[in-house]
Structures are given as C-alpha cells and as structure tokens.
C-alpha cells in the first residue's frame, strides 16, 4: 500500500455526515445543482469568512480561478510572483504573461524583501502571492506590506490562502476596504474535500464585476458536502489541530534523524537532505514525497503531514535509509 505524502492532502476523511451529504447529492445527479443550494453554500462561506456573499465566487478548484485571474487581469499589466510558488500557477503565469517578474526567495529563511516588492510597482502590476507559500510554508505577507501594496493604484493583489486554516492568517478583512484585493481559498485541504474540488474567490470591487457572470454550476455532491462541512466546521478544526500537533512531532523526529526542517505554517514540511536519491528510496519503500528538484532546488523535498502511523513509517524508513 502506498503512503501518499506528496500532494498536501488532508489524511483524515471528512465526517460521516459530510460523506453522506455527498452521496445524497448523487440522488438527483441527472439535474444541475440548483441555485438554492449554491446560494446556501455562498451564504455559509460568507459567514465562515465574514465577507459579503456577493463577493464570493465558486469554482471547481481554486486553480481555475487563479488561471482566470491571470487571463483577464494580466493583459495590460505585468505579473509579479514569488519563486518558488505553487508550481502549476507559476507555470501558467510564465506561459500567459505579457511581462513577468519573479522574486526569488532563498534558503535558509525564505523571507520576502518587502521594499523590493514595493519598488516593482512603478507600472501596472498583478501580484500573485501564495501566503503561506507553497512549497516553503513560509508566511510572506504582513498587514503593513499588504496595505502598502493595496494603496498603490497600479497594483492588483491576489493572495492565495489555500492553507489559511493551518496558518490562521488571512487578509479577508481588507476585502471591503481595498477594491484591488482578491483572495483565493479552497476546501480541498483543511476540509478534506480534495476529491470534490471546491475552491472559491473573495473579490474586491475591481475583480467583482468581471466575475458577475462567472459560471458557478458545481457538481451536486460537491455542493452538498461543502454545505454540510461548513455547517459543522468543528470537524475541520479538530482535523487541523491533529495535523498541526502531528507536524510538531514529525518535524522533531525528522530533525533527530538528521534531516533539516524549515519552519512553516501549513500541513506540510519543507526539508533539505543530501541523502542520495532520497525520494526514490522512499518511493521504493512505498512512500511518496514531493521531490522539488524538478522545478526548483536539488536536495529539497516537501512532505505532507499524514496520519500518525504514516508519519512514523516515514521516520523509520528514513532512519533505515540513513543506516
């Protein structure tokens, strides 16, 4: 059996009531999901995020929203991104951008030079920043930088908060104040709904108009499950708590095993090890981790936090490899 620690998934199944809601969604699967349920979902998300429902855009996965934002809002402005960042979006931006500036963040602390970011806003720009960053897990933004960016009329800021529930940091509270802010979120991670793909966008006024007619017909099982999950967010909170506690333990064990761990605010760990063929050897032992040398640096790996027994298997396998 394969242990999947390479895609930042939540190792815990959603609560039984949530799974049952998804199955109930199958009962009328010959019909499109009705506006009633979509509106209920938006209203629940509005309450969950404390953002007006008409500022929320639904989609099957936040990647589609990010792509749409790049397509529409980079036509007459340059894209500014951090590198590394969520690789599919980085690759799409590289393909589509009229002009692209990447700001490299470097080990060991992966911090973002705030003045450098602000110095790039002398022409119209779409900034896309994942916060926390994937794959480093680093919190790159703070309120001071975000407000300085948003006060610049040249800038549109898109923050990807896919890991918000793990980091606890959000800029959703600025959506009403700043028209040039948009935030993407997902229920794939903390809410354990990766297989149903529910992403959403929180829009400032400059983005809201474009998405007024954005098609939002999600699959009924997705809508039903998401509604049920939002009605009982305590299940999600408990899973996040378990993952974060496991993360502390796993990272400690990784460090003891001689692997360098970088602190982060997500459900995965960034590590650095010179063990030759590290990911290949783990794969041979049935454990999948993300080898970052394909897109970024050699000897860096991203490992999702799994179930306690999966994390223990990871650690014992690493120890065997070292010895």
């Amino acid at each position: 059996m394969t242990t999947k620690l390479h895609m930042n998934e939540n190792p815990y199944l959603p609560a039984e009531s949530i799974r049952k809601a998804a199955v109930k969604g199958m009962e009328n699967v010959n019909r499109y999901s009705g506006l009633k349920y979509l509106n209920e979902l938006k209203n629940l998300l509005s309450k969950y995020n404390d953002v007006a429902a008409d500022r929320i855009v639904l989609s099957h996965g936040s990647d589609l929203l990010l792509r749409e934002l790049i397509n529409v809002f980079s036509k007459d402005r340059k894209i500014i991104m951090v590198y590394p960042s969520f690789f599919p979006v980085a690759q799409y931006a590289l393909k589509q951008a009229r002009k692209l500036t990447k700001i490299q963040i470097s080990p060991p602390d992966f911090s973002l030079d705030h003045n450098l970011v602000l110095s790039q806003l002398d022409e119209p720009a779409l900034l896309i920043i994942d916060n926390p960053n994937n794959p480093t897990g680093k919190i790159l933004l703070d309120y001071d930088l975000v407000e300085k960016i948003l006060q610049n009329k040249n800038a549109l800021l898109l923050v990807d908060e896919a890991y918000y529930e793990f980091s606890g940091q959000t800029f959703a509270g600025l959506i009403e104040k700043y028209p040039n802010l948009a935030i993407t979120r997902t229920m794939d991670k903390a809410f354990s709904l990766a297989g149903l793909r529910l992403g959403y966008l929180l829009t400032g006024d400059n983005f809201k108009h474009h998405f007024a007619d954005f098609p939002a017909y999600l699959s009924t099982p997705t809508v039903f499950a998401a509604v049920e999950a939002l009605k009982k967010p305590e299940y999600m909170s408990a899973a996040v708590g378990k993952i974060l506690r496991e993360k502390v333990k796993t990272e400690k064990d990784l460090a003891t095993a001689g692997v360098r761990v970088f602190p982060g605010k997500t459900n995965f760990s960034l590590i650095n090890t010179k063990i030759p063929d590290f990911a290949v050897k783990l794969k041979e032992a049935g454990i999948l981790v993300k080898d970052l040398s394909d897109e970024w640096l050699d000897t860096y790996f991203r490992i999702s936090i799994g179930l306690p027994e999966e994390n223990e298997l990871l650690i014992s396998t690493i120890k065997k490899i070292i010895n």
Partner: protein
Amino acid sequence: MKKTGLIVNPIAGMGGSVGLKGTDGETYKKALELGAVPTTPQRIEDTLVLINRKDLYFITAPGKMGEDYLKKFDFKYDVISTIGKETNADDTKRIVREMADKGIELLIFVGGDGTARDIYDILGLTTPVVGIPSGVKMFSPVFALSTTAAAEIINNETDQFIEKEVLDIDEEAFRAGKLGAKLYGYLKVPKNPSLLQGKKEPSNVSKPEELSKKEIAQYLLENIENDALYILDPGTTLATVAEKFGVQKTLLGIDAIFNGQLVGSDLNEKGLLELIKKYRKTKIILTPIGGNGFIFGRASKQFTPEVLKLIDKKDIIIVATEDKISRLDCLRVDTGDIKTDNKLQGFVKVITGYKTETLIEVK
C-alpha cells in the same frame, strides 16, 4: 594529533586573469609572459588564518607547494619530498603519494579541476579531502564555496563523508559548441554540503533552452545602447546573444563589441582594462554558472577586482535561461576582494527571456 596533508598547486588560477583557460602544460609559461601573478598564496593564507583546531599535524610539500604558507602560522608540521623551481602535475601526484604513505587522515589542497584530477589519480576514495578553490576551471563540486567555507569545514571535525564528483570541461564538446562537463572520478569530502560548491551543470542544449536563449538575445538586441562597449562573458547563452548582434564570439573567451563591431576577442585582464579605459561607457553581459550561481570569481577570472572597480553595478547585465535560474538559491561572488564582493551583493535583475525577469540575491 591528526595527520593532515597540505598541498598547494602554486600556479593554479594564474591563467584566469590573462584570459587563458587554465595553466596546464605550456599554457603556464604563456600566463607568465602575459604578466600573470600567483593567486594561490592568498587563498591558502585566507584559509589557514581561520583554522582554529589545535590537533592538526601537517605534512606538507616544500616551498611554494605548502611550507611557505604554513611557516607564517603556529601550526606543527613536517616537510617532505623535494621540488624544483617549476612545478607540475607530476610533483603533485608524487608528493600526495608520499603523504598517503605517511598515513595522512585528511588532505587539504589548493587548486582547480586539474589539481583535483591529479589527487584523485593517487587517492581515489581512500582519504578525505578539502578543496580550496583557486583554479580557473572549477567545475568539480569537491571544492569548498570559498576560503571561509573551507576553514569552516576543516574546523568542524566529522567522521561523516560524502563522495563528490571530480569533473573537467569536455574539450571536445566545447569545440562542438556545447558547454559540457565530464565525470573523471570521485573524491571523499567531509559531509557539509551547504559549504561545498554545487556541480556546475552544463546548460541544456535542448530546444526549449535554445528558444530561451534566443528570447534573451532578442530582448538585449532591442535594448542595446549605441556608443557603449559591451563585454560578453563566455558560454552558449552569450554566444547566442553575440550571434543576434551579428558577431562571431569565442565560446571560451571574453569578447567585446562596440556599435555592432567586434573590438576585442578572447580578452585577458589587461585587454579588458585597456578597452574599458578607451570607451566612455561599458556594460558587461554575463550569465551565472549553472548549479552554483557564481557570476564573478570562478570561470571568468579575467573579471578581476581591478576590472570590476571600473564598472558600475547597474551596467552589469545578467542573463540566464529560466531553467538555470529557477534551480539556483542565489547568485554568488568571490572575487578575492571583499570590497568588490560587497559592491556586487544585494538583489539583482536577471533577464530570463523576452518578457521575463527574475530578481535574485547575490551573496
């Protein structure tokens, strides 16, 4: 006491500042004729001054191959063997063999890829080594990142070692217009990867890389300034740029163009200084070394601190393919002059395509 070998290739790196690609064989004499001065004494002394271990007992070569530098410090040492006025690879091999016979537990060597090859020929994987970089070509990741890094590796005693490649440039591939490094063997080095050089990876010559280079070249062509001297670094990226500019560039050498004309080819430090003083405005176009990100202080040693003092930081144009730059954690400089290094540090813009750039820190 830990028996530690120290051997210095006194002529390593001399070819760099005069535009030669190494000091193998007769090239050394040419380097001398061109006014090259030894660079290794400074490198070894910069390292020795930082070594704080008291348990090292050095076994070293006579004179300029070791003894001259150790005697300036308080280390305990024995001198073995003999050398003539001029030294060569055979001396290195012979003395390293004698050191091995005397049971050294660690060998510290100063040199470049050629020196690493000579040491590999004798030691193989039997004895760990610390390489202090001082050559022109240092493709091999056996070398420490700098003299400071070398001292840190030596000071942090460890019983854990890793094997690192001994490489050298593939001359045949170079002649065929490809930048390639070939594997020669492996040396055992202390396990401290963050202080070792990354392998200087050959630029990929597949189609996307070529397209990337063409985009960079097109961007530079559209932004070229009249009446400015452009100095072009070696490598395939810059060869593509030169081709776009309509000039034939040497692959291994530093060339210069002015208003579309080649005005200098395979330039050494002296040639560069003359040209820079002759023209009112000068810009350098260069590309980092893949794998370790060095922009100055490694392959193109003609860019000496003297040359760089005459160039404004904003007139250094750095280009690299998207693939190369995304695999680097930072850019690096190690010119041998701290003031020059400091001037070059901080974030810089790297042109990676017609419409793309990366801001990355020089460390």
